[in-house]
């Protein structure tokens, strides 16, 4: 008998023979915040993230340009702004070890927690979001869902091979509860609200 068969036989022999129906999970979205963007911003900042306020007029990407002005190595995976390291040319993830900044777009975000989602589709090389010293995320305000119940209905979890919520930067307080940003991954995570170029009229 294989280990697999033994484990299944043991489960079937020991499984409690009691009725335990699977409950339906509500969306818990009765109290939607008036502004999902404002709620997202508040949650993000609580979790140590930075919200980049777009300028009232002029270049919407100005806050991003200011951040990367003195950076040596920038890898951008978005068409809105150029970097100097092409992700398409990256062979092994460790080639990204010298990145100062990575710039990506989030397919959606969650107001409740201040999380942005990233998947292998946007990242191309998943490690880019962890090996860079800092991460900048573009987010369309129309792509914010109210809470995690809505978030987990999204297709990203069923399509790609990797999907991850980032909620603020890499953090720890394993020593005496002192909060540290940049534990092992990025030292900062900034989010700039910026509508994406729409290709489908159905949106």
């Amino acid at each position, binding site marked *: 008998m294989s280990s697999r068969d033994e484990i*299944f036989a043991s489960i079937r022999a020991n499984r409690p023979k009691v009725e335990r129906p699977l409950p339906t999970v509500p969306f818990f979205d009765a109290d939607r915040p008036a502004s999902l963007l404002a709620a997202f911003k508040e949650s993000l900042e609580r*979790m140590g993230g930075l919200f980049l306020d777009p300028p009232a007029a002029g270049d919407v990407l100005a806050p991003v340009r200011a951040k990367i002005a003195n950076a040596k190595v920038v890898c951008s995976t978005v068409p809105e702004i150029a970097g100097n390291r092409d992700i398409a040319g990256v062979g092994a993830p460790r080639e990204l070890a010298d990145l100062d900044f990575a710039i990506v777009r989030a397919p959606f975000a969650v107001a409740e927690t201040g*999380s942005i989602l990233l998947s292998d589709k946007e990242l191309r090389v998943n490690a880019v979001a962890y090996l860079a010293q800092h991460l900048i995320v573009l987010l369309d305000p129309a792509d914010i869902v109210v809470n995690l119940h809505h978030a987990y209905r999204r297709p990203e979890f069923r399509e790609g091979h990797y999907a991850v919520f980032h*909620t603020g930067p890499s953090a720890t307080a*394993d020593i005496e509860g002192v909060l540290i940003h940049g534990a*092992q*991954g990025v030292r900062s995570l900034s989010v700039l609200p910026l509508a994406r170029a729409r290709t489908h009229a159905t949106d």
Partner: protein
Amino acid sequence: MSASPGMLHPELLDQHDTDSIHRHGHRLDHAEGASKPLRSHREPQPRGAKIHGNRPVDQAEAAARFIAAPEHEKMHDERLWDLRQKRDREMHGIPEWEELRSLASAIKEHTLTHLDEYLEQFEANARSNGVHVHWARDAAEHNRIVHDILKDHGAKSLIKSKSMLTEECGFRPYMAAAGIEVIETDLGERIQQLDNEDPSHVVVPAVHKLRTDVAEVFAKTIGTDPDNSDVHYLAESQRESNRPLILAADAGMTGCNFAVAETGSVVVCTNEGNADLSANVPKLHIASIGIEKIIPRFEHLAVFVRLLSRSALGSPITQYTSHFRGPREGGEMHFVLVDNGRSERLGLAEFWTSLKCIRCGACMNTCPVYRRSGGLSYGATYSGPIGLIIDPTFNARKYSNLPFASTLNGSCTNVCPVKINIHEQIYAWRRELVKRHEVPFVKKAAMKAAGEMLSRPAAYRAAIATADFALAHLPRFVIYNGLNAWGKHREVPHPPKQTFHSWYQANRGDKR
């Protein structure tokens, strides 16, 4: 700053608070961050329980040494109580909190009673996503399987994120003997690895250590300045010393917080992003999964993700919640599903619901015994209230003392996000261990006498009156002798002048 609401040890408050991070005037306390600045003084670190093979672990002995180190005991007590208070704050922010707990419990109970079906579904979906699925009956088989995978790839070094399952399996010692370098990538877990100590808590592995202890460990192992215990310096030094090891590693390993049957996905929650580094930098990713981690669908995952970090740390979510469904392009992914006693536990009528546990540690943070004795005093992989009801399933003799390390106050049960009746199971384990003759004579004789007394009300009343009289008049050495564990490190309460029953008889007895 002088106010310190809710502090157990106000003297720990750091009046200067130079370490903290602010946003718009608010002091941040997300992740494991303490809600108040705390400061300790150097003191030698008390070590954990002394292990003598299969002999019962003397938790009380190790706890006594922890209590004898007041800087450690106070900081530990304060930090965990702070996590508990942050948890309460988050709970009050969510009107549906109790409904979420009920849902979480119901989802887990449903899944556990259909575990074979969901495991089959998970396995089939993982395989169709291109994942290699392995099954391990026990710890030894788990270690062997992982070793074989590493050998197949000629892998000599492995970076990994924290996993209680791999602790349970004795994975690091096994790999050390096999000549494979294992590098923990979580700060707390790395501290513990470098200090040759087990994690003392399921979520904050080095919570029992002071900054000066960490400075000592790092000075010896990664070459930091032994006199510099600045926390930012220590954390940065660990990051910088680990980064080259991460980049050079041949393989990566993670645990699994939740395994979603409908897609064959593994979900890992970390604050440091170290699971994502471990899984995404090397080509090979191995995930170790306890078979009880299965949940049916993503809609159920939402319930658990909302509860986990709020219960554990009082933070709305972990910084990273990572969903691995299949290998990267050019990469390889392996899932090792481990039983190691879980399927047997499923058959224990009184204890099977302990398998609902999502390892948040809320029961540990709230437990007065755990907070004051330190996780290493339990001498077992799992400490605190959840440990008391899981550890005896691994070894009833070795962990026979643990179910007695509880006041049965029920606080653990009240904070448990999946509604495990922890304190009732602790009590049930005491009964079970007596039945199995795993309880030492003194404890057993005392309990037997108490049991007989409690079953006869008249005898009980007579005994209480006698005991109160005796306590008031006996010399100290009779009360505080080696047979009375309750008299160690605490004063026996002053006996009342009159028992409740005699007071009731005198004052209310005739007014029925």
